[in-house]
């Protein structure tokens, strides 16, 4: 791995609601390197999307606020940038694509319009040059007849096509980092694989780093170099894809793996599901936030918050008992 591209340290992003303060991201640190494919995995509410939005500084005051933390991108402190400077980063150096391609494009403008808008915003080109770039970008994501498609409105395209448009839009300005927030969740399985392949090919070609956010470990399996598992606004476990899959240290990761469908495996037993529900992030008590759902929880889990520890090189886990747990029975034994 090369030099660090994005460094997030001790990020705390809270939201104030009528019930109280939601500690959506509560002390998270990680680094993404140039060209790295970085997966962020967790259930909904684990803080993975908020992390991405925090990096983009799209947390809307007064409800949401980045309370503490540092976000350094290419050596620059993003949190210290003026709004105007931050806008140049957004879409230009860090692009983001979203979960639901059906709603992520503005329905009243043509996709050409929306692409050109992005390009002209970040590159000093005229409208016709921008149109050329846009057509090329559409061609890159394998949209047939890109010239004609430029005039189409989003509702005239299929879901997969729209996500391709989103990717084209994200990559059109050649960003250093592409944040993809559940980019395939709303798509059918075949299209999912196509889109993931496309994203991988295109970002490899451009050496673009990707922060791939998903709740599905299966999605990141073939895509990412490193995976960060989040739980209730905090880090659960982080490591290389191999570590996470084969050398699982955190009971939650194990639970996720147990509940995952893998295309390369045939299961005979019932899919595992983690019991209970994630805790409320309003005034959470001390201790491990996973403890109420954890089969291995002991008294210490109630008392002390487990801090992330580096068990082996680049393999971090936030569990008091790692690496001493027998997690096989949670993950399930591969057969055949």
């Amino acid at each position, binding site marked *: 791995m090369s030099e660090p591209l994005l460094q997030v340290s001790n990020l705390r992003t809270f939201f104030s609601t009528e019930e109280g303060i939601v500690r959506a991201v509560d002390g998270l640190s990680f680094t993404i390197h140039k060209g790295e494919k970085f997966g962020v995995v967790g259930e909904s509410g684990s803080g993975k999307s908020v992390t991405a939005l925090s990096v983009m500084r799209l947390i809307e005051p007064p409800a949401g606020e980045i309370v503490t933390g540092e976000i350094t991108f290419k050596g620059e402190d993003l949190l210290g940038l003026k709004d105007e400077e931050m806008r140049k980063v957004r879409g230009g150096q860090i692009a*983001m694509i979203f979960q639901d391609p059906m709603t992520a494009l*503005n329905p009243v403008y043509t996709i050409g319009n929306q692409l050109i808008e992005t390009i002209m915003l970040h590159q000093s080109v005229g409208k016709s040059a921008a149109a050329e770039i846009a057509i090329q970008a559409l061609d890159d994501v394998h949209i047939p007849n890109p010239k004609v498609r430029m005039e189409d409105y989003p509702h005239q395209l299929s879901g997969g096509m729209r996500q391709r448009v989103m990717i084209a839009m994200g990559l059109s300005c050649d960003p250093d980092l592409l944040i993809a927030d559940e980019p395939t969740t709303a798509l059918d399985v075949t299209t999912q694989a196509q889109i993931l392949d496309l994203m991988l090919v295109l970002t490899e070609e451009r050496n673009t780093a990707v922060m791939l956010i998903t709740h599905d470990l299966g999605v990141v399996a073939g895509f990412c170099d490193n995976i960060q598992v989040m739980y209730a606004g905090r880090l659960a476990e982080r490591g290389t894809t191999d570590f996470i899959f084969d050398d699982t240290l955190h009971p939650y990761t194990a639970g996720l793996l147990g509940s995952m469908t893998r295309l390369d495996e045939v299961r005979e037993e019932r899919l595992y599901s983690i019991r209970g529900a994630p805790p409320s992030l309003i005034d959470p008590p001390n201790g491990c936030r996973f403890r109420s759902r954890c089969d291995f929880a002991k008294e210490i889990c109630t008392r002390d918050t487990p801090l992330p520890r580096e068990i082996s090189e680049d393999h971090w886990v936030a569990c008091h008992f790692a690496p001493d747990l027998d997690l096989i029975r949670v993950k399930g034994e591969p057969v055949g």
Partner: protein
Amino acid sequence: MLQYVIRRLVYGMITLLALSIITFTLLQNTGGDPLDRLKSNPRITQQAIQEMAEFYGLDQPGTKQYLTWVGNFVQVWNYPTAWGRSFQGPQQVQELVLNRLGGTARLMFTALGLAVMIGIPLGIYQAIKQYSFFDQATTTFSFVTFSTPIFVLGIGLQIILALKLEQWTGVKFFYTSGMNSTSYSDLSFGARIGDTLQHLVLPATSIALISIAGYSRYQRASMLEVMHSDYLRTAKAKGLSRRSVIVKHALRNALIPIITLVSLDVAGVLGGAVITESIFAWPGMGRLYIQAIFLNDWPIVMAVVMLIGFMVVVMNLLADLAYGWLDPRVRYD
């Protein structure tokens, strides 16, 4: 497109025809006898009433009356006799109704204009500044005005701004009633504008206040929905400025739903505002209409209903065309 418009107009005419039949039937069956007023006067003989009925054609069966009416009504170019006579006096309905158009248009378009120009931007601004003091203060204000009966609002404005303000300051700011001073024709141009405003502001404001409240609430909700939409987040993530995000991406989408509301209100303009017109003695359609209803003066009621119906048909079509222009998802087929 042209085909669509033509088809819609044809449907519109059928709708109007149905509207006329239904309204006519209802009026015939529930309105009572237009000559009741005469019948209750002991000095008027049966024979005189009979002659009056013949004069107005009321001695004919209902179907015949309707057919005669509809046959004449469509020949609008036969001014002023096409729409029949009022039963309150022998005046021609077409004349009476057209006479009120100016007053009604002045009041209602002013009020509607104020409501649109204030209510919609207000709603948008409230949504942008959601939960701010401004948002909460104006929202409270909207709820208060919206739940105040127009009668109370109108009389309140009249007492405070026309009556008391003059008593306190000794200067006449607004008149309690009327559309212009009776000396209007003698005034200079500038004084005419002043006089017009002194009469127009209170009734227009009392209608507009309530519409502003309604429009802003509606627009605020619509804008908030858009503000929380995925495509707006996309726009922000693209690095667009807040201004471009709102102006280019949010506004157009947020304005689409309110078109229906405004277009129906424009259609309703011709109906006037019964209560406000009464309070401020405004020579509008609403007063003509409501009095006609009370006195079973169905030629006037029919004429106003048909005018409003016509406006609804036209405005609906315009609204749908505007929809198509603003929202590419709408197709005409």
